[in-house]
C-alpha cells in the first residue's frame, strides 16, 4: 500500500532580509533535502532542537510555506505545486494543531464558532448539520457539554488545547500536523492531552506528524521517529529502533540529555554532554553538520558530508553508524 504522505527531497529556503549596514541578503536553507513517508493511521514524530527546521517541515507539508523544491506526495498526488481548488481540496484533508493554546484561539469567538469555522469555510453541509457536528466534537474531546457558548478565556490551557484538537478534527482529515501540541501544558495536564491525541488517532485512523522536542513524550505517541539537525534528517526509524539502539551521535546525545525523574538513575547515568551551541543554519559547518559538536569527530567528518543510508534497520547519516551502537 502506498503511504498517505510521501515527501521527497524537500527543500525550503527563506531570504534572510538584507540589513542596511550589511551588503545584500543571504538565503537560509531551513529544510535541506528531507524525505520521509507517513502511513495511514500512523504517527511520525519529528524531533530536534530549536531551529532544526522541524516546524518548517510541518508547515510546508500543509502548504503554509512554499516548498523551494522537492515533492510532497499526498494520497498519490504531488500537492507541492497545487493551486486554487486543488489546494483547497487538499487543505480540507490536512489540518494543524498549534503549540500555544492561548494565541491559537480567537478570544472573540465562542468555542462553537471556533470548532465550526473549518466546517463553515469549507461549506460542509447546512447550518444544522454543522452544529450537530460541533456538539459531537465537543463531547469527543472531553469538553463539558455547555462549552460551546463560552469564550476561550473561560478555559484552562489543557481545555483550550482540546478545543484546538476538536477544530482540527472537524473536517475528518486524513492528516494532522501537531506542532508541539503539549509543550505549553503542565505535566498533569500534558498526560491527558497526550492520551486524548493517541486515542483519537487510533480510533479515527488519522496520520499524524507529531513535531516535538520532548523525547519522552514522543516515545509514548510515535510509531516512527525522524531526528532533525540543522535542516536535515540525521536518523529515521521505528520508535523502538531509535530509542533502543540510536546510532547517530546526535540522537544519542539528545537521548542522554533528557533528565529522568529518578534521583538514583540520575546519579548513575553516564552523560554525553555536548559542548558548544548549535551552529548557525545560515552558515552550516562543512562536511557533517554535526562535526563541531560531535564527541566522535574525525577528519573525514569535517570534509565529507555523510549521506543518509540504511544501517541496522534504520536510515542514518553518519560515516560510522556501523560502530556507534551502544550495545544493550
Amino acid at each position, binding site marked *: 500500500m502506498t503511504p498517505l504522505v510521501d515527501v521527497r527531497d524537500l527543500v525550503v529556503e527563506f531570504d534572510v532580509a538584507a540589513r542596511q549596514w550589511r551588503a545584500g541578503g543571504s538565503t537560509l536553507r531551513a529544510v535541506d533535502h528531507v524525505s520521509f513517508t507517513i502511513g495511514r493511521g500512523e504517527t511520525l514524530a519529528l524531533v530536534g*532542537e*530549536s531551529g532544526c527546521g522541524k516546524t518548517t517541515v510541518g508547515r510546508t507539508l500543509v502548504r503554509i510555506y512554499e516548498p523551494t523544491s522537492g515533492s510532497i506526495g499526498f494520497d498519490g498526488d504531488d500537492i507541492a505545486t497545487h493551486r486554487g481548488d486543488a489546494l483547497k481540496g487538499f487543505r480540507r484533508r490536512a489540518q494543524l494543531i498549534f503549540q500555544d493554546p492561548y494565541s491559537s484561539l480567537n478570544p472573540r469567538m465562542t468555542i462553537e464558532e471556533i470548532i465550526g469555522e473549518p466546517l463553515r469555510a469549507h461549506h460542509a453541509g447546512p447550518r444544522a448539520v454543522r452544529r450537530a457536528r460541533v456538539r459531537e466534537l465537543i463531547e469527543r474531546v472531553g469538553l463539558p457539554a455547555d462549552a460551546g457558548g463560552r469564550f476561550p478565556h473561560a478555559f*484552562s*490551557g*489543557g*481545555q483550550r488545547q482540546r478545543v484546538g484538537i476538536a477544530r482540527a478534527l472537524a473536517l475528518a482529515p486524513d492528516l494532522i500536523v501537531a506542532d508541539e501540541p503539549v509543550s505549553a501544558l*503542565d*505535566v*498533569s*495536564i*500534558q*498526560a*491527558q492531552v*497526550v*492520551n486524548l491525541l*493517541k486515542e483519537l488517532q487510533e480510533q479515527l485512523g488519522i496520520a499524524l506528524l507529531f513535531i516535538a*522536542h*520532548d*523525547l*519522552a*513524550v514522543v*516515545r*509514548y505517541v510515535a510509531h516512527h521517529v525522524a531526528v532533525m539537525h540543522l535542516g536535515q534528517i540525521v536518523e529515521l526509524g521505528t520508535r523502538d529502533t531509535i*530509542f533502543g539502539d540510536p546510532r547517530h551521535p546526535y540522537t544519542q*546525545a*539528545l*537521548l*542522554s*540529555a*533528557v*533528565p*529522568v*525523574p*529518578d*534521583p*538514583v*538513575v*540520575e546519579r548513575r547515568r553516564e*552523560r554525553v*554532554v*555536548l*559542548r558548544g*551551541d*548549535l551552529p548557525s543554519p545560515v552558515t552550516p559547518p562543512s562536511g557533517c553538520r554535526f562535526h563541531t559538536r560531535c564527541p566522535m569527530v574525525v577528519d573525514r567528518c569535517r570534509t565529507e558530508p555523510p549521506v543518509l543510508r540504511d544501517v541496522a534497520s534504520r536510515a542514518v547519516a553518519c560515516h560510522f553508524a556501523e560502530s556507534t551502537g551502544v550495545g544493550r
Partner: protein
Amino acid sequence: MADTPLLDIRGLETAIGSRAGVVRAVRGVSLRVDRGETVGLVGESGSGKSITALSIARLLPPAGRITAGEVLLDGQDVLRLSQRALRAVRGRRIGMVFQDSMTALNPLLPVGRQLTEHVRAHLGLGPREATRRALRLLDEVGVTDGERRLRQYPHQLSGGLRQRVAVAIALAADPDLLIADEPTTALDVTIQAQILDLLRREQRDRGMGLLVITHDLGVVAGIADRVAVMYAGRIIEEGATDAVFAEPAHPYTLGLLTSVPRLDTSLDARLPSIPGAPPPLWALDAGCAFRPRCPVAIDRCAADPPLSGERRRVACHVDIRATVP
C-alpha cells in the same frame, strides 16, 4: 546557635492583586535551605513557586505584597530590612538566575559592563581589578574567549551562553545563596544539560546553598538533595529527594511522578494522568486544594491538612504510603 540555617522561610504569605481581586498566591510556606545544600522547589503553573522565590529577595511585581511570615537569612529577617540594607543582601548574599536571560540582562549594555558593574558595586573593586575578576568568572562558568565576550551585547550571544553569563553575574559577589528560577526551561535539552552541570559544580565547589525552582521533576531528580512540592500556594510535601521520589507520601506528588513520560520505563498503553486541573487561586475553600482531583479524598479533607512531620513533611490526612504497594 551554630546550626542557624542559611535560609529559613517561616509562614510566608504573599498576596497578588489581580482583576479577580486579591489572590493569596503563597499561603503559609515554610522552607529551609542550609549551606552546601541544594533544595528543589517544584510545582506547576500558578502553584506559587516563583512568587515564593521572588518574595525571598523582595523582588515582587508592584501588585504583589508579602502579608505575613519571616524570611531569615542567617537569622536576620530580610522582610524587615531597610531598602539600603536590602540592596546589600540582594546580589551580594543572594544571587539570582532567571528563566529568560534575554530580559534578565540589559540589552543596551555589553555583558562585560554588566558583570564589572556588579563586581564594583558589591565588592568595591577598581575598574582593572573588576575586569580581571569578570574574566575569571566567565572562564569559571565555561565561557571561552572571554575578552571578546565582555564586549558583546546580550543579543549577540546564544541562549546557552547568555544563561552562563547570567550565572556568572549571580556568582560575581560570592553569594551564600543562589536562587535559580526555572534556569533551564527556555533552553534546548543539550544546553540544559550543560547549565545543570554548571550549577551542580558551582554549588559543590562554593559550598553555597542553592534553591532551584522548576516544573521539571527530572531536573530536580538530577540536582536537588531535598525537594519541596507546591500546590495551590502551599508546600504539600517535602523531604530528601531520594525518599520522596522512591515513596511519595502525598497523592499529588504520586500523581505528578506517574504522569511524567519517561525514557526508561516500559510503555503502558496510556500515560497515567491526574484528572481535572489545578483550582483557580481565587476559588479556594477551606479544604485541601487537591481534594477535587484526589483519588483518595475522604470527608476529613474538607479541612485543610497541616504540613507535618520531621524529616519528611506531608500535608495529607491519608497516608498513601500505607495503601500503595
